[in-house]
């Protein structure tokens, strides 16, 4: 049995071993065995946490050819590539032949015999992966904090965000130190730590310099982190663009890969058929220097159902126990959260209710073109412009991934929202709407200003409208459009009615007088949030989304009857759309209470909420005559 050290530090050794055994004829299915071996090793969460993560450890602290994990997002899919699965080398002087395994590697050994009959060509798929866009700081910190990985690097390293460090001679079972301890270390450490920290949290010089000529193609502006070329060997058809994944693979940073790019500029031999096939841009994108964009040869990959570090992984066994324990206290957490939101939303309880439901919504199914379960909320009647920003900051603390888009004229005319295919570089140039599922998109319409939208602006507004109504983004492939389904929670903050469509609009009724607004706003920020309370909220929001939900036949009947009654009373006012909305509200309401089926009580409550909301709208309409 291999020790833990070995399969993490030298996973290729495991591969070689299995390969060699297969050559002796003992096990023909060595490839499946390798995959199975690592799957088995990584079954335990404790084992997973031993593997260093590309997300929190700077690349130069990681050992090449060791096992690393990467929490990432498939931004682009490159063409499949053929590689030498098995090849033979001939040693020059002795003429001795040897078989090698080319799987999970980028570079072959010297002296490859291209005419060998033993060569096996195989196929693999490359994905261009970036860190999950819009991932909030607390998520990153949370993951980094739970990592047990001990990196054997030549120097001690300080992970950029977890704000704690390991010493070289520490034991395997290092206890993660509390954040507060970071500053209380020995004087020598402190010195080096401070240096490292500055280097890594502020943009590292290498990265900054390279960024000028190498665009890492992050969907959102201002993102940072490692991009990675992930090579997948097994059933790559199951992966889709925009999937969030956790991959375990062998890190490859062979400088030979970078040499390729440099060499290319120098020797422009167009006679060589292997060269001149790609344009310079394409070359730069598809084979970037490995020091900037490392290669990761996947041994094990799993899609992320949620991106909340506080929740156990879906695969682990204690998942059920965890869920049932959280569900039990959901009602109480809900009350706390609701009180908090009411406070944040200037004392408006109804708006707080709807905001809570909105944060739980998710597209759970599609019927034909119609996405079910989406719940776009338009919070209108917001006071000052700075308020919406504050609101976003608060939401940022609660949801794993989010993005704030101020809908200023400049932003709308200049941001690229839809991803676009660049045929010169042969890649998908990312746009801000290329987001992982369940990302919260905060549209700040209070930033609207008079002016004219140009062609890009109109396109962007249409794209936002499509996301809201159909939960899809049309990617621009120049010669044609391609539709990609998405699952984005859109929250629109506006003064009046939004120019974008929405599923539900709530007009905020502030209980705070404008005079005291400033004071009140500043007090929100200072609202004492103990970490454990915030964590409870975070767990609550993620768990409620994962619950199953059903409607019994009896309830179906009841809802039908009720709908018929409502139509009788007010045939003009109640339409199929209203029923759609009420069903969604009822669903979210039940989930928010930890119930996994529609109850009569839930339905009535949803109806009541709708009624309150509508009456407020009508009231608002009469006050404000120019509202349609």
């Amino acid at each position, binding site marked *: 049995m291999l020790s833990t050290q070995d399969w993490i530090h030298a996973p290729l050794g495991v591969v070689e071993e299995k390969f060699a055994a297969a050559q002796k004829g003992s096990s023909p299915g060595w490839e499946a065995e390798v995959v199975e071996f690592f799957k088995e090793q990584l079954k335990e969460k404790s084992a997973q946490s031993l593997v260093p993560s590309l997300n929190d450890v700077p690349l130069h602290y990681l050992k090449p050819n060791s096992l690393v994990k990467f929490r990432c997002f498939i931004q682009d*899919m490159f063409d499949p590539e*053929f590689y030498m699965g098995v090849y033979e080398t001939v040693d020059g002087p002795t003429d001795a032949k040897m078989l090698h395994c080319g799987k999970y590697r980028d570079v072959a050994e010297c*002296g490859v015999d291209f005419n060998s009959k033993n060569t096996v060509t195989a196929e693999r798929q490359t994905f261009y992966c970036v860190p999950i866009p819009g991932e909030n700081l607390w998520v990153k910190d949370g993951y980094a904090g739970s990592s047990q990985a001990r990196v054997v690097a030549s120097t001690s390293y300080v992970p950029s965000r977890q704000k704690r460090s390991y010493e070289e001679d520490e034991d395997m079972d290092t206890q993660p130190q509390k954040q507060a301890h970071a500053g209380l270390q020995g004087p020598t450490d402190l010195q080096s730590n401070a240096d490292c920290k500055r280097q890594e949290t502020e943009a590292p010089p290498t990265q900054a310099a390279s960024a000028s000529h190498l665009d890492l193609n992050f969907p959102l502006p201002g993102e940072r982190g490692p991009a990675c070329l992930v090579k997948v060997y097994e059933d790559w058809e199951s992966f889709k663009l925009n999937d969030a994944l956790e991959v375990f693979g062998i890190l490859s940073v062979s400088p030979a890969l970078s*040499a390729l790019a440099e060499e290319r500029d120098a020797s422009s031999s167009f*006679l060589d058929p292997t060269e001149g096939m790609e344009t310079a841009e394409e070359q730069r994108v598809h084979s970037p220097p490995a020091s900037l964009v490392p290669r990761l040869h996947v041994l094990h990959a799993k899609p992320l159902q949620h991106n909340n570090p506080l929740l156990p992984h879906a695969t682990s066994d204690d998942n059920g126990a965890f869920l049932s324990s959280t569900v039990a206290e959901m009602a109480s957490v809900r009350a706390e959260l609701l009180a908090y939101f009411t406070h944040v939303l200037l004392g408006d309880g109804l708006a707080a209710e709807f905001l809570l439901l909105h944060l739980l919504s998710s597209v759970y*199914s599609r019927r*034909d073109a119609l996405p079910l379960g989406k719940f776009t909320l338009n919070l209108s009647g917001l006071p000052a412009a700075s308020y919406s920003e504050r609101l976003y900051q608060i939401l940022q603390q609660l949801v794993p991934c989010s993005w704030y888009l101020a809908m200023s004229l400049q932003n709308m005319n200049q941001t690229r929202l839809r991803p676009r295919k660049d045929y010169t570089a042969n890649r998908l140039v990312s746009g801000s709407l290329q987001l992982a599922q369940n990302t919260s998109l905060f549209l700040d319409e209070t930033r609207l200003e008079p002016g004219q939208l140009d062609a890009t602006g109109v396109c962007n507004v249409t794209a936002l409208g499509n996301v809201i109504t159909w939960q899809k983004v049309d990617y621009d492939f120049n010669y044609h459009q391609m539709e990609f389904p998405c699952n984005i929670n859109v929250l629109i903050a506006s003064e009046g009615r939004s120019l974008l469509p929405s599923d539900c609009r709530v007009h905020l009724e502030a209980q705070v007088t404008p005079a005291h607004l400033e004071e009140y706003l500043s007090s929100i920020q200072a609202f004492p949030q103990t970490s454990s309370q915030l964590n409870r909220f975070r767990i609550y929001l993620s768990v409620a989304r994962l619950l199953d939900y059903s409607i019994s036949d009896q309830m179906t009947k009841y809802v039908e009857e009720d709908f018929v009654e409502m139509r009788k009373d007010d045939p003009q006012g109640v339409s*199929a759309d209203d029923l759609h909305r009420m069903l969604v509200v009822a669903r979210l309401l039940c989930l928010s209470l930890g119930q996994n089926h529609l109850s009569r009580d839930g339905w009535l409550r949803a109806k009541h909420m709708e009624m309150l909301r509508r009456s407020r709208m009508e009231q608002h309409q009469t006050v404000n005559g120019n509202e349609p």
Partner: protein
Amino acid sequence: GQDSSAGDLMPMPTSPATDLLSPAAPQDTSLFSSPRPSGPNEVDISSPLVYGTPSSRVEGTPRSGVRGTPARQRPDLGSVRKAPQVDLHSDQPSADNAVASEPSAGQNLVIWGTDVNVGTCKEKFQRFLQRFIDPTSTEDENAGLDLNEPLYMQKLEEISVVGDPVLNVNCRHVQSFDAELYRQLICYPQEVIPTFDMAVNELFFERFPDSVLEYQIQVRPYNALKTKNMRNLNPEDIDQLITLGGMVIRTSQLIPEMQEAFFQCQVCAFSARVEVDRGRIAEPAVCRNCNNTHSMTLVHNRSVFSDKQMIKIQESPEDMPAGQTPHTTILYAHNDLVDKVQPGDRVNITGIYRAVPMRVHPRQSNVRSVYKTHIDAIHFRKTDEKRLHGLDQDGEQKLFTEDRVQTLKELAAKPDVYERLASALAPSIYEHEDIKKGILLQLFGGTRKDFSQTGRGNFRAEVNILLCGDPGTSKSQLLQYVYNLVPRGQYTSGKGSSAVGLTAYVMKDPETRQLVLQTGALVLSDNGICCIDEFDKMSDNTRSVLHEVMEQQTLSIAKAGIICQLNARTAVLAAANPVESQWNPKKTTIENIQLPHTLLSRFDLIFLMLDPQDEAYDRRLAHHLVSLYYQSEEQMEEEFLDMAVLKDYIAYARTYISPRLSEEASQALIEAYVDMRKIGSGRGMVSAYPRQLESLIRLAEAHAKVRFSEKVETIDVEEAKRLHREALKQSATDPRTGFVDISILTTGMSATARKRKEEVAQALKKLIQAKGKTPAMKYQQLLEDLRGQSETAITKELFDEALRALADEDYLTVTGKTVRLLA
């Protein structure tokens, strides 16, 4: 003879592993034990595939015969001359005695690494050329050829006349003629195609000894049966002949590729020619004449170059699985295939799939363990060419498996297939059965008829449908569904689109700086359906372009010096909201949606989607919606037909079924039309126009297509009549009388309204006449007088219309606020 230094080249075969992987050549394994013959000299002599080198090109004098016509290198096939032959039965691959002219020895000879025997292969192919007949050919390439004569001999004759030395060979023909030959062609194209070349040239110059060609005929196979999706390419396909469909996304500039380098000794001016082998030139180190070392220099303008172009193609959007990005593949086009395709073209290419190892560093020996792949193009076939020519055939010929066809046919045989399909359409949208049926028929379309020979032009086969109704009755959802269902669907909103966005616009290409025509939604949805939401919000200008499209099915463009007519054989599915946000049942359709009647009459079916406001309906709706929210995916699928099946069903019917009217059906149609005319005649109005008859025919044909029937029968006509009547009942009922009145749609006014207008005009005329000789009158005064006289209320509009009618009679003119009598 070649310089021996060529042997120093490191051999880099294009694909190291194919032989092992190719299951088609099991006997090859025995060959691997034999060492590869080294030294190019003997190989060159022995190879029967030696071409005349370009140096043998003689200019000027007319020549004929195989020997006299220069061969042209085929860079698309790579270097063939290196392939030696081996005797299957001898252990020693004694290439020297393996000369093709010895027939006894030749029996067992095969090209090294393959099972191809040159002699047999040649013979077989010649036999194929001489004998192959395809009486059922429908390809447009074969137009004008006698189908009962050997096809390819006629093509050779054509070559002798036209002088274009290219013979395109359909692989499917080869397969049906000789499956073994086909297998060899697919597996070893690099060896087999040159053999074909030899065969065809021998045959050609035997037949036409006097003909003069620029160079020897080259065979270009196409339509390899193994038509591949780009996604399915795998290492087993390396070095095989493949056919791929895709879209050209990029073409490079022309690359001159050196085929033969010319060296001259600087000391003694002795010249030497060296052929380029896989991109490498073996520079002669020593002059063979004066024995000086390093005295040879390359003379560029005496070297021979060939044209080469890099082309990138991308998977067609139809072939893609959802949620993935399209794959791209690199192609190399050589010689006359250069510049044959442009970015944006949909093409089927046939070529040889190649893989070359990548070097990390030219001077370094460790390589990246990946291969670069590309395809050497042999044949291009544009698939969307027909759009400009307007051939009567659907662009995309989707291939169906036997099983699939069987399932579809079983489905078609069911008596309730029509209802089944209609309910499978947009299951999330509740009821509106007739609308769904209408859209279903639109998806199938009528039979395309071409009367252009008799000068009557094309008859529209597409069914146009307009949905109008209250907002929030899921019109958009229906449109979105249809857009997702059809392969060539376009979705636009009347609000956001301009006339140019719908038709075509001219723009400057950023790369070439040339004016290019960019096609809009209507042209893009040729052979598909164009869904236009918010039809009523469209500007008049934009709407006007629809007139031509919706009847003539063409688009005429005259801008920026580009004048052309494009085909836009698209069915239009439009949705319009009433002007007053809520449908006013007291008004006619025209008044409700405020669209010009000229446009409305071009819709075959106009449906109203109204909120029925009835309890039973509400109950069913509620049930439907609730179940939508809780039923699992599987449950839904059990209930309804899979969308994929529906898609295939439609595609199959559209491609293979073209029903014709039966005798009874024609009679039934005639009766139906006469009946429709009769309805109105009693009340003095016209209730049907020929356009309605055409609509009926289209609908009946579409219904026959739904049944997979080649004949339109009475039941089809019955359903067409019913649907048409239903639609009319909804949209063309005169709210004043309650009768269905087609003139509401054709003239924009119901017959009663028109009658009223005439009455007012007459009354006004009388009033003016009664006033006696007054050349000019005040407008306001006249209106008041008329109002005072009339028993019914006279609106200002009505008065204006009456004035206009009288003005048309040249009785009076209206200038500003005065009315003058004429004459």
